């Protein structure tokens, strides 16, 4: 069993910076866990604590059935892929992959076998004699993956491994990492600040903010039922529209039913709007909007609209091309199941 358990893990840096606060995560054997969050939220710190590159200030980390708090990185049976790959510049690709095995006194024949196997999987067999300098970014990325694979670790750790690649290669490598992880069945923790990467890779998605977990669970659960406005605003592209509702209601915005009392924030995703002519209805939500700008991507079109003509801005997604022009007034409607309500003060979702 190669599950990973973080129990109340905390990190305080020497300067008194509290980078990670009492985080508990349970990653079952073979699952892919993605940590996502804005810059500086402590993702890398948490990952590096699992790797053993950073001391653990409080709490416990358990890999399999071993508490690893006091173990060296090399004894934790993990492999890490770094953002800038961290390949040894003076070693050939083969030696880069073999180095860790040699240090563990793996028999030569087995090293050869494992490196060739990894090279075959990653299609870098023809590069084995080259130095990292003579490789493209994508190839270096593969070698870094290869170095992780040959170790046959209990856990893979990735720290933004794709962020140095161009957009197209990123998508390609993303798919490959996913396939590879599935094929090898190795428990993985992956850090990114790209929400699309996070959504597509994760079995368990952990959204972090200021050193704490905002929400974790299957990616679609986070998409469908974000626990806080922070998660709502982080997951999805473009993110969920969050409209604070003032005391007397918002001109141009009509809700059929408002849950609970107190000040609320209404959340609704751009893709959950439908456009109708003004005056139809009533629906669970009716908003009269004026289109202020249009972004056509080809497969879809985003309308930037002002609620009630001069109220807060919301984004409405329309599939395909759109005939609508800037300045048009429309009615945007949505179904009750697609509405999210959050406490305006705490940002916490209101139970429904």
């Amino acid at each position, binding site marked *: 069993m190669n599950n990973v358990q973080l129990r109340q893990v905390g990190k305080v840096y020497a300067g008194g910076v509290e980078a990670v606060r009492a985080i508990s995560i349970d990653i079952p054997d073979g699952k892919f866990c993605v940590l996502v969050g804005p810059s500086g939220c402590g993702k890398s710190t948490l990952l590096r604590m699992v*790797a053993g590159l950073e001391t653990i200030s409080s709490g416990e980390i358990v890999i399999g059935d071993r508490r690893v708090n006091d173990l060296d990185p090399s004894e934790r049976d993990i492999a890490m892929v*770094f953002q800038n790959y961290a390949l040894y510049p003076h070693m050939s690709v083969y030696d880069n992959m073999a180095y860790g095995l040699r240090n563990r006194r793996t028999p030569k024949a087995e090293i050869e076998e494992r490196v060739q196997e990894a090279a075959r999987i990653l299609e870098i067999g023809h590069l084995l004699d080259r130095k990292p*300098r003579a490789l493209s970014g994508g190839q270096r990325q593969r070698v870094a993956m290869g*170095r992780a694979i040959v170790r046959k670790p209990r856990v893979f750790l990735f720290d933004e491994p794709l962020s140095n690649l161009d957009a197209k290669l990123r998508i390609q490598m993303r798919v490959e990492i996913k396939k590879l992880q599935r094929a090898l069945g190795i428990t993985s923790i992956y850090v990114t600040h790209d929400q699309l990467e996070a959504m597509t890779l994760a079995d368990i998605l952990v959204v972090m903010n200021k050193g704490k977990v905002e929400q974790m669970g299957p990616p679609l659960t986070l998409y469908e039922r974000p626990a806080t406005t922070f998660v709502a605003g982080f997951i999805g592209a473009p993110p969920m529209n969050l409209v604070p509702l003032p005391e007397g209601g918002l001109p141009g915005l009509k809700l059929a039913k408002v849950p609970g009392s107190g000040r609320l924030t209404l959340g609704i995703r751009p893709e959950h709007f439908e456009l109708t002519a003004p005056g139809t209805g009533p629906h669970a939500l009716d908003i009269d909007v004026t289109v202020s700008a249009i972004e056509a991507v080809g497969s879809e079109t985003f309308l930037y609209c002002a609620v009630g003509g001069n109220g807060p801005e919301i984004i409405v997604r329309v599939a395909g091309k759109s005939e609508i022009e800037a300045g048009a007034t429309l009615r945007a409607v949505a179904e009750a199941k697609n509405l999210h309500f959050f406490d305006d003060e705490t940002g916490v979702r209101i139970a429904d």
Partner: protein
Amino acid sequence: MVERRSILDFIPHLVLLLGIVILAFPVYVAFVASTWDAATIANGHMPLRPGPHFLENYYKLLFVGTGSSTREPVGVMMLNSLVMAMSIALGKIAISLISAFAVVYFRFPFRMAAFWTIFVTLMLPVEVRIYPTYKIVADLNLLDTYAGLTIPLIASATATLLFRQFFMTVPDELVEASRIDGAGPMKFFFDTLLPLSITSIAAMFVIQFIYGWNQYLWPLLITTRDDMQTIVIGIKKMIVTQDALTEWQLAMATAILAMLPPVLVVIVMQKLFVKGLVETEK
């Protein structure tokens, strides 16, 4: 356009050529002088072309020695200089690599104090601390030994600083990758850091070899026996000012010989040396 280019190209080349001529001419004269006999030079009309005594002069110098003040063959002096320069260069590199490694990669008490102490020695070259250093060497009975000649010159702030600077440009991820790959500190040092430093080491070697080879004051103090003399001191002793009996052809030949090893080192290490000064292999 083409003409302007060629003129623009021509001027720097002219300047360079002039520079080379100015620098090379004295060396050429020294070489020419080393190929004539004493009489030709003494009468003040030495020709500007090499003379017939090349082999004779150099043979006598290397294996027999001069007639007057320095009786040791120059071969022995060259060997002494070589031992000294090599020990200083290699010693400095070894010590500096280790101390830079300690300062950059380990967190120990008074780390910065240690670093600044090394730094401050920059202001205390041998010339400044010559008396205490001499006293220590004398008390340790190291006069007229290679150890006495080299050890006091080995500690080097310059090289430590250079290596520290280089180590700090090595990405932290490499250290971390090594740790995950199960390499301890010394293994990281030998497997990763040292190979990456090779160009810096070459540059340091060239600089420190020449520094060691050109030492004058310290060997002058420390060596009294003729067979421990270095070539730089040998040249000095050959030039006798009081009487006109200086064997100029031999002194010049010694100068030419003294020049060769540093030149050789520069030529052999040239590629690495330039690389080490201008770029880092990463």
